[in-house]
């Protein structure tokens, strides 16, 4: 395994120096002192600008021609002076006007930055240099938003809307949506035709159900859209501070912001629109921005204002501020921006580092001023958002094809019927004098049978419409809404801390949850909380920290539980020998329980270290105390954070750019090395456990700061301590540090490496710490070179700085290593384990760095030691030429082929592969000619991690998996950068944590914690899948059974289109009499209870394998329907058609036969559903038996109604049927004749080829799980899918390894004894 995964996202930004609170308070009224202060400060700033700036008198234009926007040091002295003077003037003015607002921080520390770069204040002396032509037409008049309220610069306002409809478009659009369903169109046509005499039914009987169905669906649409609207309004009504003229700022709603407005955004607020940064609370106009919602990256990004505007640092500065921005038109590219800024008759080039994007968040900066460039739907993030696609589950898609089949059947029998009718009309009807065949309309014209046949075709199509269940859609909709309610109401998916329950935002994907094959997960905020906990460390070759990581805990538990398993004989065998291992596991378990109790107390955030040897100053008693001291000092000094005093509690918090760094500082504080102050040149540390008993405050002069970047994978500081000694402190990725050790610095290398491996295996992020003592001359020589490199001009500046830094960071002495736990969200590893056991594949797609991602992979057990990692990457090609592209692609192709070959040749059945790929490589891998190869490789790998992927790539990967494998994918994420993925995946799940709502708004389901995914899929998904599947099958069955009887009868009426049933029966059949039981099936049925679902994750595989909605099953149900229809029809007809059906001698007419047949149908389909339902609560009983009873009640009531309404059904039950024994006898006969074969079928199947849930039902039914707990436990563990990821896999691998060792040991023992 490559060990390149253990370094942290450290600092990568400019830092600012603080100065005292110079301008505060004291001189409020006096002009002169304030003037002098201003002068002073300006001069100081002038002097501190850069150490030595040779007069760069290069013509400005030359630079821009060269395209060197990143040429940071290009601050011409003159210009600097100019701006300073401008600032001075302004300050003078403000001084006159009154008190200034306090500034939090002072800055100017540039001399410590190594990679400080890029303030692009390039002046453009004339405008032709850029921004001509189409695509660059936008003009923004800053601070003059009124100009943007009228043409031609009338840009859209900041109102956003993600709703599908509005009040006017709702009816037409929603209707259109409804009638996009084929079945609804059909029913609409049928309803229209029912107004003509062609129809076999009364118009009401066609229109009523249709309007009911459509109305219900539309009401649901309206509800959902209303919710979206309310969400939008919440965003639109957020308030922001905006310049209202005359230097006054006031609050305004987001939606009222116009282009050109100057807004003030405060700390931890979201930017309301795309802004141009003008100035910030930091004097050099930088600010920190968190773009998690945009790209999912968690480290803060630094934005810098233009030099000319950074002095506008309070409200009054904007009184007369005017400027013009000319820039690109709205576009979705997040990382580019092209524009010019015209201010005081100078033109400055703008680049992306001045642009603050909507939905990113201001961090670590008290406030910024910005001018609005793009608003509302023109902002980059909104341009990125795509219309959320309406998704349909696979079951529903399949249902469509069933409906097409039924349509075909419908058309077919309609054709048969109309041909039959034409033939009858032509040859027979002329003889049927009782029909007066020669005195008729064209509907029954024997002289033109073809015309009549065509008319009849339409009639037949309407008549047999009962084959197509009109109520199916609406029933499914009702069922899904109720299922969604259960999901929303599930108390076990409610998060107490956040206070949010799970939400099914669209209900039409419930059953899809039960068929998921691949989960594509975001990392930060989804798997991790992005909070680091200092957990362990290794100092001077001794490992400290007793608390187990989450992975270790679970592994220990697993081993402990397996240890009690007497079935596992081999296990026992090694248990005796390797007893130490097992018992330590058990110990750990006990340790965990008490630890869990402990964590109930408010723990220190970022610090979970536990080891009395180091705590409370005990480290001084350790033999290696001096090394430990050094270790702690490195922790406290080697960083770039700023301490911040919390005024309420008096605690210090650290504003670091990565949570790791904060964790280190917290750790250092807890160990007694509290970093409490930072000045321009020094770091102050309060040491609690120094030789004297009192805390000592020490000052360390920071001479240089060699920053972190992903290439260097390390950072260093050069400090001068109080004794004047110069030390370089370096922390970095262990592989990097270990390579740079001096000969005598390798004292602890072996032990530390061992510990690093252990930490890595435990899923922790590791860093190695080292130092080097420098002597004065060495340092100053180096420093000269370093400064030269820093101030060098040209593209190779960074390379030079890096080279010089490199020179210094060598011959290091290893001190130790740290292990930080990237706190996973609660229950994530367990959840991943369970999901893996349920046979789901999990891919991680993250915008984060490859190392971070790999670390998390380890922490979640998606990766483990011993897994074969396939890393796909292509060499950095700076030249973006055709050739380079081609070469990169060839290279990738080769890598893909090699990897596939490797997997193919692998013999070990336990071998697991993992695939790691970065965004850049992915761009090639996703190209058409490579993507299939890439996919097939990825599918063969147990886990796939994609790093540094853009939101678009996330979506593309999702699409690739979805389309390439044809299986159901689930995308889960929490940020706006996951929106594409969430929308593209078959199911999008949003984590509704504390961050923005974009992901949730785009999602189909939202949960507040990743761990709820397990319950959502394994319980609700499984149930919903089975429910919907059996519900749809049953629906088709019931409609076929009913619809075909209509057809048979029609064949006996000379194909004339007469139905044997009263219109009312037919309306009620679908809408009332048989819909409620099937809804109860769809809403309440449970094959096994939820705890069993969770205990036997293998049951979930019934969904992805689609055991319950495959074609054989569907066709089986159709045949069952056919069979039932035949039995129902012919038994009834054979008994009733001729002979008297009562002892009074009356014969049955159509109404009597119709009612009897209908009674049979109601009974048959309801008994059928009883055979399907697994789970009877009072609700099922009520609905099923209620339906049957409702039919009798209806028939009775209908018979009581006036004969003009009921016609021949008048008093039918009361007078004719009720008292006729044959009516009841036939009902019973038909019920059994129809359902006995099905009963025999399922009993037979169950008896000889039971499915898993059958057996489990039986075990539960006979309470075997209580009687034989061992069996139950054993089966639970066996039910896990063979998985190569997750804890279980890791534990299995460990066990295998141990067994292997033991085996070797035993065999060697035997060999020895033989001798």
């Amino acid at each position, binding site marked *: 395994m490559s060990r390149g995964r253990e370094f942290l996202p450290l600092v990568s930004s400019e830092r600012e120096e603080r100065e005292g609170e110079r301008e505060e308070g004291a001189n409020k009224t006096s002009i002169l002192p304030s003037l002098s202060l201003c002068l002073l400060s300006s001069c100081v700033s002038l002097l501190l600008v850069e150490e030595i700036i040779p007069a760069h008198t290069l013509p400005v234009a030359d630079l821009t021609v060269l395209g060197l926007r990143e040429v940071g040091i290009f601050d011409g002295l003159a210009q600097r002076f100019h701006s300073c003077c401008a600032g001075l003037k302004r300050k003078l003015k403000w001084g006159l006007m009154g008190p200034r607002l306090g500034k939090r921080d002072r800055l100017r520390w540039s001399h410590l930055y190594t990679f400080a770069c890029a303030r692009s204040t390039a002046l453009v002396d004339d405008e032709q240099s850029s921004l001509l032509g189409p695509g660059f037409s936008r003009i923004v008049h800053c601070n003059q938003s009124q100009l943007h309220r009228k043409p031609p610069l009338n840009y859209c306002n900041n109102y956003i809307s993600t709703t599908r409809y509005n009040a006017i478009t709702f009816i037409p659009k929603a209707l259109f949506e409804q009638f996009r369903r084929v079945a609804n169109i059909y029913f609409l046509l049928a309803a229209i035709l029912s107004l003509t005499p062609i129809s076999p039914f009364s118009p009401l009987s066609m229109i009523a159900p249709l309007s009911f169905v459509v109305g219900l669906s539309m009401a649901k649409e309206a509800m959902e859209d209303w919710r979206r609207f309310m969400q939008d309004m919440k965003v639109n009504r957020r308030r922001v501070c905006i310049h209202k003229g005359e230097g006054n700022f006031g609050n305004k709603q987001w939606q009222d912001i116009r282009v050109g407005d100057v807004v003030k955004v405060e700390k931890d607020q979201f930017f309301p629109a795309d802004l141009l940064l003008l100035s910030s609370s930091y004097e050099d106009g930088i600010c920190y921005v968190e773009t998690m919602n945009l790209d999912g990256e968690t480290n803060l990004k630094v934005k810098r204002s233009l030099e000319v505007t950074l002095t506008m640092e309070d409200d009054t500065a904007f009184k007369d501020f005017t400027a013009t921005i000319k820039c690109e038109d709205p576009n979705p590219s997040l990382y580019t921006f092209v524009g010019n800024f015209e201010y005081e008759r100078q033109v400055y080039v703008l680049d992306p580092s001045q642009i603050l994007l909507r939905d990113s968040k201001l961090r670590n900066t008290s406030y910024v001023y910005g001018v609005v460039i793009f608003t509302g739907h023109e902002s980059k993030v909104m341009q990125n958002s795509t219309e959320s696609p309406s998704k349909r589950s696979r079951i529903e898609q399949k249902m469509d094809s069933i409906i097409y089949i039924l349509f075909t059947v419908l058309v077919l029998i309609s054709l048969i019927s109309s041909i039959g009718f034409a033939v009858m009309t032509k040859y027979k009807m002329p003889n049927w004098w009782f029909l007066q065949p020669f005195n008729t309309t064209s509907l029954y014209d024997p002289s033109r049978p073809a015309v009549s046949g065509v008319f009849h075709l339409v009639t037949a199509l309407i008549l047999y419409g009962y084959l197509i269940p009109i109520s199916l859609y609406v029933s499914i909709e009702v069922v899904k809404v109720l299922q969604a309610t259960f999901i929303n109401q599930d108390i076990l998916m409610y998060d107490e801390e956040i206070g949010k329950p799970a939400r099914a935002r669209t209900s039409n994907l419930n059953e899809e949850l039960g068929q998921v094959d691949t989960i594509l997960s975001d990392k930060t905020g989804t798997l991790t909380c992005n909070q680091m906990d200092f957990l362990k460390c290794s100092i001077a070759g001794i490992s400290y920290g007793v608390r187990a990581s989450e992975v270790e805990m679970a592994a220990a538990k*697993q081993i402990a539980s397996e240890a009690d398993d007497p079935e596992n004989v081999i296990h026992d065998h090694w248990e005796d020998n390797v007893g130490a291992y097992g018992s330590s596991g058990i110990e750990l378990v006990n340790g965990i329980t008490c630890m869990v109790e402990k964590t109930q107390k408010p723990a220190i955030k970022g610090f979970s270290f536990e080891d009395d040897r180091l705590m409370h100053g005990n480290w001084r008693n350790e033999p290696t105390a001096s090394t430990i001291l050094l270790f702690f000092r490195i922790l406290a000094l080697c960083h770039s954070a700023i301490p911040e005093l919390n005024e309420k509690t008096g605690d210090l918090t650290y504003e670091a750019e990565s949570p790791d760094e904060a964790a280190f500082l917290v750790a250092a504080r807890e160990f007694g090395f509290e970093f409490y102050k930072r000045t321009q040149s020094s770091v102050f540390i309060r040491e609690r456990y120094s030789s004297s008993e009192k805390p000592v405050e020490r000052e360390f002069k920071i001479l240089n700061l060699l920053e972190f970047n992903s290439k260097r994978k390390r950072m260093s500081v050069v400090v001068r301590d109080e004794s004047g000694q110069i030390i370089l402190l370096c922390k970095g990725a262990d592989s990097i540090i270990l390579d740079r050790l001096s000969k005598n610095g390798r004292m602890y290398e072996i032990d530390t490496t061992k510990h690093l491996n252990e930490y890595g295996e435990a899923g922790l992020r590791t860093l190695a710490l080292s130092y080097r003592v420098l002597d004065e001359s060495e340092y100053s020589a180096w420093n000269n070179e370093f400064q030269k490199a820093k101030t060098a001009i040209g593209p190779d500046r960074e390379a030079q700085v890096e080279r010089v830094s490199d020179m210094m960071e060598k011959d290091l002495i290893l001190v130790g290593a740290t292990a930080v736990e990237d706190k996973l969200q609660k229950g994530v590893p*367990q959840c991943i384990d369970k999901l893996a056991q349920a046979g789901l594949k999990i891919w991680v797609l993250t915008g984060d760095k490859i190392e971070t991602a790999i670390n998390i992979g380890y922490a979640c057990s998606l990766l483990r030691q011993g897994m074969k990692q396939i890393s796909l990457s292509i060499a950095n090609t700076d030249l973006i030429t055709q050739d380079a592209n081609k070469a990169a692609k060839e290279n990738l192709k080769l890598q893909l082929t090699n990897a596939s070959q490797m997997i193919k040749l692998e013999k070990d059945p336990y071998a697991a592969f993992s695939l790691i790929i970065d965004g850049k490589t992915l761009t090639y891998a996703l190209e058409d000619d490579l993507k299939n190869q890439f996919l097939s490789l990825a599918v063969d790998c147990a886990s796939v991690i994609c790093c540094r992927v853009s939101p678009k790539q996330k979506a593309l990967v999702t699409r690739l998996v979805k389309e390439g494998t044809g299986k159901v994918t689930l995308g889960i994420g929490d940020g706006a950068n996951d929106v594409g993925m969430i929308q593209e995946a078959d199911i999008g799940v949003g984590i509704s944590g504390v961050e923005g709502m974009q992901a949730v708004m785009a999602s189909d389901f939202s949960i507040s914690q990743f761990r709820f995914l397990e319950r959502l899929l394994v319980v609700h998904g499984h149930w919903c899948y089975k429910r919907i599947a059996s519900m749809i099958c049953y629906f088709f069955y019931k409609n076929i059974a009913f619809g075909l009887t209509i057809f048979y009868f029609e064949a006996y009426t000379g194909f004339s289109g007469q139905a044997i049933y009263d219109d009312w029966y037919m309306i009620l059949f679908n809408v009332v009499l048989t819909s409620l039981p099937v809804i109860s099936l769809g809403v309440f049925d449970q094959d096994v209870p939820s705890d069993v679902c*969770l205990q036997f994750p293998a049951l979930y595989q019934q969904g992805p394998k689609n055991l319950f909605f495959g074609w054989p099953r569907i066709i089986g149900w159709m045949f069952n329907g056919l069979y039932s229809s035949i039995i129902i029809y012919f038994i009834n007809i054979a008994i009733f058609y*001729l002979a008297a059906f009562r002892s009074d001698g009356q*014969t049955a007419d159509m109404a009597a036969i119709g009612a009897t047949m209908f009674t049979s149908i109601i009974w048959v389909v309801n008994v059928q559903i009883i055979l399907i339902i697994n789970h009877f609560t009072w609700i099922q009983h009520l609905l099923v038996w209620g339906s049957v009873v409702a039919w009798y009640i209806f028939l009775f009531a209908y018979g009581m109604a006036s004969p003009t309404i009921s016609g021949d059904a008048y008093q039918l039950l009361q007078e004719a049927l009720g008292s006729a024994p044959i009516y009841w006898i036939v009902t019973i006969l038909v019920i059994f004749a129809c359902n006995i074969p099905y009963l025999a079928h399922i009993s037979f199947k169950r*008896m000889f080829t039971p499915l898993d849930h059958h057996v489990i039902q039986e075990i539960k039914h006979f309470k*075997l799980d209580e009687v034989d707990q061992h069996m139950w436990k054993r089966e639970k563990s066996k039910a896990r899918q063979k998985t190569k990821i997750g804890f279980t896999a890791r534990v299995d691998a460990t066990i295998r390894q141990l067994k292997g060792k033991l085996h070797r040991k035993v065999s060697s023992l035997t060999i020895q004894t033989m001798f």
Partner: protein
Amino acid sequence: MNDYHGSAAGPSSGSGDGSAPRRNSKRPKYSKFTQQELPACKPILTPRWVISVLTLVGVVFVPIGVASLMASNNVVEIVDRYDAKCIPGNMSSDKVGYIQDDTIDKSCIRTLTVPKDMDQPIYVYYQLDNFYQNHRRYVKSRNDAQLRDSEQADKTSGCDPEKNARDGSPIVPCGLIAWSLFNDTYSFALSGKILTVNKKDISWKSDRDHKFGKDVFPRNFQNGTLKGGATLNPNIPLSDQEDLIVWMRTAALPTFRKLYGRIEQDLKANDTITVTLKNNYNTYSFNGKKKLVLSTSSWLGGKNDFIGIAYLTVGGLCFFLATAFTVVYLVKPRKLGDPSYLSWNRNPSGH
């Protein structure tokens, strides 16, 4: 494993109490219903249950079948097809001409022999064949409102083409059904003595009371150019025209029987009944058979072996299935809840 799961998915109460009141408003309320934990009965199909059910069904069905067959066997039925026999030899090539010729006397005499003792009441039916009373055009051709209420005599919608008389006044009863009313008549004599046929109460009481008005009299009936079937006495209200009422109950199939009357007198075996019938009704156009049926009835109605056979078949099938199950189960039993049948135990390699 179960333990940690429990803690992971369980409601982690206790934390976050500080801000509880506002947040908890979103907390789903616990109820057995919303958590889908309602007490439920979960029947499973055990072999014992299946075999018992099948046996039980068989045990119940076979006696019912036997009883039905016996009932059916006790019914004595005389069926006499007369449509062909009642045509004079010279007209047999032109049956339609014969039937449409009003000048020919349509009387015909048939002799029936009673096969077994027939207890009264003996029901007299006429049975038509190939007569599509269920044709949509036919079924729809009536107007119930008009039949019921003399006030609504001119409601003739749906009655096409027998709607109005030539002068535009409504036909009562309108429509094809009434127009094609069956008009063969039968009179019976047993060894010279007339057997009275009681034609009272052959229709449903509800029809007489509520669907055919007591004050609705036939009007303009059979006055058109095309003569249909029977004429009605315009002085008798529709509620008393029971033949019409029976006829208006359209039959479900093209072969049907309708009640003509009752002979309320026992008949002995080998009695010879002379039937004098008026063979008026035209079934010759469409080759429809006409039959006269005399039948007694049982508790199940008329003679109908099918129901008994069906019951016996289903009952037999149940017995068969029960036996088959038992046998197969004994040969290859599966212990209920035997975990070795779980998929992961059956084919441990391939999940």
